């Protein structure tokens, strides 16, 4: 069985307890306009283009049967609309000006990489986290990877938006030791405006996940103008406080470091005007959340 993987991040320390390996799976069914992992949005492999790295060797021109690459006025031009994503040009681009994002990997390949750090998981109480993108979009692959890890005694976690029918969420749970999910807004219309989807199903799934044997961590990316008010964070926290198996509620400040990734993918970055929330503001939001009686963490 194959999955489309964008990256395997070892020594991951922000995606669950202990030292972890985070596997980023390609494809997401939300379209959050601030997303800092745009390379994980589309399910198919894509080519990132970094013109500043190009050494103008023109090897990609010969490699591309679609004619997507050309040199115009001494500048390398990549016509993405002609690209089939085959990756032939990438193989000739030693300057890494062209990078294929999203490799097809087998369960065994991914698990082999995860196993390399088994000694570190054991000593730190860490394990593996499937993230993305949305790991539940590749449910069979995700379940197979997590099941293999559990067989080897490795702690497993997923990071999900849980925007699926409950049956799909439920199907992954036997292979998961910890669930981390996002709640971005309590108001469905506002949720839809900023993520492209309504939130009823997400909140319903959160309530169900809150009653499962696996501990649950709920996280909110704090996005200026979207949910960065004490009232909104307080409302999310009040909901989160009702989840019986909640480990903690965590606020993650928006950061603007994804812009170059959007550019490399030929996508428009729509969050250019956002200013990251200050530590003081994050602290005040945490206080507002804390008033709801929820165990809090600030990233």
């Amino acid at each position, binding site marked *: 069985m194959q999955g489309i993987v964008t990256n395997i991040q070892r020594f991951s320390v922000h995606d669950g307890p202990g*030292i972890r390996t985070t596997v980023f799976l390609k494809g997401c069914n939300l379209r959050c306009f601030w997303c800092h992992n745009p390379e994980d949005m589309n399910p198919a492999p894509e080519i990132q283009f970094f013109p500043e790295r190009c050494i103008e060797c023109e090897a990609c021109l010969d490699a591309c049967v679609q004619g997507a690459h050309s040199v115009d006025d001494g500048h390398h031009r990549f016509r993405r609309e002609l690209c089939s994503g085959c990756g032939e040009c990438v193989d000739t681009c030693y300057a890494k000006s062209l990078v294929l994002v999203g490799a097809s990997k087998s369960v065994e390949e991914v698990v082999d990489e995860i196993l390399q750090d088994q000694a570190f998981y054991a000593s730190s109480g860490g394990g593996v986290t499937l993230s993305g993108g949305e790991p539940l979009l590749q449910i069979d692959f995700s379940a197979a990877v997590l099941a293999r890890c559990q067989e080897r005694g490795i702690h497993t976690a997923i990071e999900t938006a849980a925007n699926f029918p409950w049956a799909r969420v439920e199907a992954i749970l036997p292979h998961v030791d910890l669930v981390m999910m996002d709640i971005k807004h309590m108001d469905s219309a506002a949720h839809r405006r900023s993520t492209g989807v309504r939130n009823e199903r997400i909140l319903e799934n959160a309530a169900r996940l809150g009653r499962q044997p696996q501990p649950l961590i709920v996280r909110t990316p704090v996005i200026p103008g979207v949910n960065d008010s004490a009232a909104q964070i307080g409302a999310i926290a009040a909901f989160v406080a009702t989840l019986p198996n909640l480990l903690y509620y965590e606020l993650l400040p928006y950061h603007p470091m994804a812009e170059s990734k959007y550019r490399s993918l030929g996508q428009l970055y729509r969050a250019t005007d956002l200013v990251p929330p200050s530590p003081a503001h994050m602290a005040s939001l945490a206080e507002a959340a804390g008033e709801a009686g929820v165990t809090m963490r600030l990233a």
Partner: protein
Amino acid sequence: MTATILTQELTYQERLDALRATKLAQTQEKQRVLGAMDHDDWALVLPLPEVRKVVQAVSGSGVTITDALIDGIDMASNHANGGFYGPRICGENFRRLLDAHPPYVDPLCSLAGAVMANFASYRRQGWNPDLDYSHLHAEQQLYKLTPGIGGSQHFCPDLAIGLELGWRGILDKIEYYRAENPHAEEFYAGLEEVIFGIRDWMHRNAVAAQELATQEESPQLRCNLEEIAEINFRLLDEPPQTLREACQWMTWYLMAARMYNGSGALGRLDVLLEPFYARDVAAGRLSDEEAAFHIACMLLRDTAYAQLGGPDAAGHDVTSRVSYLVLDAIDRLQVPANVGVCVGNDVDPELLQRGVEMQFTHRMGFPKFLGIDSTVQGLIRNGYPAETARSRAYSGCHWSAVPGREYAMRDIVKINFAAIFNVAFADMMADTAVKPSVDALWQRFVHHLQRAVAVTAEGLAFHLEHMHEVFPELPLDLLCYGPIEKGEDASHGGVEIYNLGIDGAALATVADSFAAIEQRVEQERRLSWADLMRHLDGNWGEADGERVRLMLKSVPRYGSGGSRADDWAQRIVRAFTYAIKEQPTSGFDLTPGIFSWASTLAMGRALAATPDGRHAGDPISHGSNPNPGFREDGATTAMALAIAAVQPGLGNSAPMQLELDPGLSRSTEDIAKVGSLIRTHFDLGGTQINLNVLDKQKVLEAHKDPSKYPDLIVRVTGFSAYFASLSPEFRQIVVDRIIAEG
């Protein structure tokens, strides 16, 4: 002095803050006068401008440095070339320097003294030319060896001897054994000159403190100066009784040893100070804060290398309250410090936790971490008794030695694998009878590596035969078991153990080169052998050169995990270890390590382009670390696994240089994660970790304009230094590592 200081008692922390500010000003003056300093900070204070002379010299570690001398000292010579050789004249000339050395007393410091000049810089003629080893030159140059001949210190004295005997006791010991060893009169005369010189220097400092006390308006500082005078008058003869006196005695010894030939080996500081601390506390005359202050004052005066925790000879952990007080001292002092904490199954785990906390609190690269179990087990595997292995003490950049018993020459004998590789490559390509192949290249690499080891061993035998006639280890001899007793210098049979280190360098450069050729030339046939040679000879400047360079550079690299380059790195270390242990020697052992120290720059400068995509003249890879950019995500754990797998495993180290993301919080959970990373690397066989937790942006800004962050401290390799003191090239190495790994 301000009115505040006159009327109010200063706290210990306020005094340390002021001492730190003074040191920073002194450091900035050194940067102005001496330029870049790609080495230990050394805590040297420049002589006053009117007696200062700036010279080019060779440091105790064998590298060329710009140094400042106290001018106007006439060194005696006993050779037509103007040099001086042998114990008596070395002792006499060292005493001349000590006699001319100005006193240095800071009323805020609890200890007297500071080093203002390196004796080695007066030894302009180096090796005695009558002792000829020109028969080795051809191969030494062919392989670009760092042969260590004439190298000094790099072993560890046992300061417990001095703390027990004091200067008078050591003089009495010399007197006793001189009668038994009439052949060694020159040697004993040299030793005595050193002691007389140190005592006179101490006396002048005591007098200076006394005079300053009469002028001092602050009762608190006047009292301090009077105590300094009293302590130093007493220590001229008597051994120290209190912790403060012990710190003062060790400071004198360290400064003298530092001045003589650059030794900065302190050894097991917590063990040395523990009896004094216990006695003072039992007598009700010492608080922990005061103890930390005296220790800080000592570490301010010398950036000596010290170990905390770890087993005693019987295997029991020696971690004590004093171990934590030493950490408190460097925590409060915040200047470059070279203290290593032991991490091991039987070592107090709090020590590791406290060390990691400090790293995250100050982000100054201290302490460093020592994998004590793997080094002890390695030395046992190397054929040494467990008691000996456990008795070693961390004493230098990446090395340990048994205090007072082991002559080690560690960190000054190096084989640059990349130089060997280039010889092997040229050799194979020139042989028309051989079809080029990776296998043929490897065979030649191993052959030349074995020759390099053999030539190095021959050089070391020559060194051991003659070093005592050239520049004997007089200060270190005083605190070893054997030299005084036998009348023999430590370099010439004086001590019990002769276990000399040979370090391999450029491991990643060569592992990545083999992997690149194997994949691109042999397997994929994207490049011919002849074209590869053409591009190497042309330093990638030929047509298509940059593309070929990037093609070779883009194969999976050493450190990426499970790559061919990882396999090659392990194979290279195995071949190196085998070559060393199979090398016949007489009267000494050889033990391999992997470490390039600051030579990363110099070794690269002298080297042609290599097939890993490195340009001619660029630095070689750092120690046992992968090349920067070895993984897209710079995985720390992948590197920790790779370096654990390339340990020679015979007691000497192959350290991991680790730059961590300051994005990790100082929460208990994140500190535990870093602690687990360190523990696991050591459990897998790792030996040492040099850690920096640095803000990438800050380092980049400091690289652009060092004056912006004059107090930024980094662990450069094994040593710690002000970032602003480093050369732009060396700063670039640190920046590259941080960008790649951070």
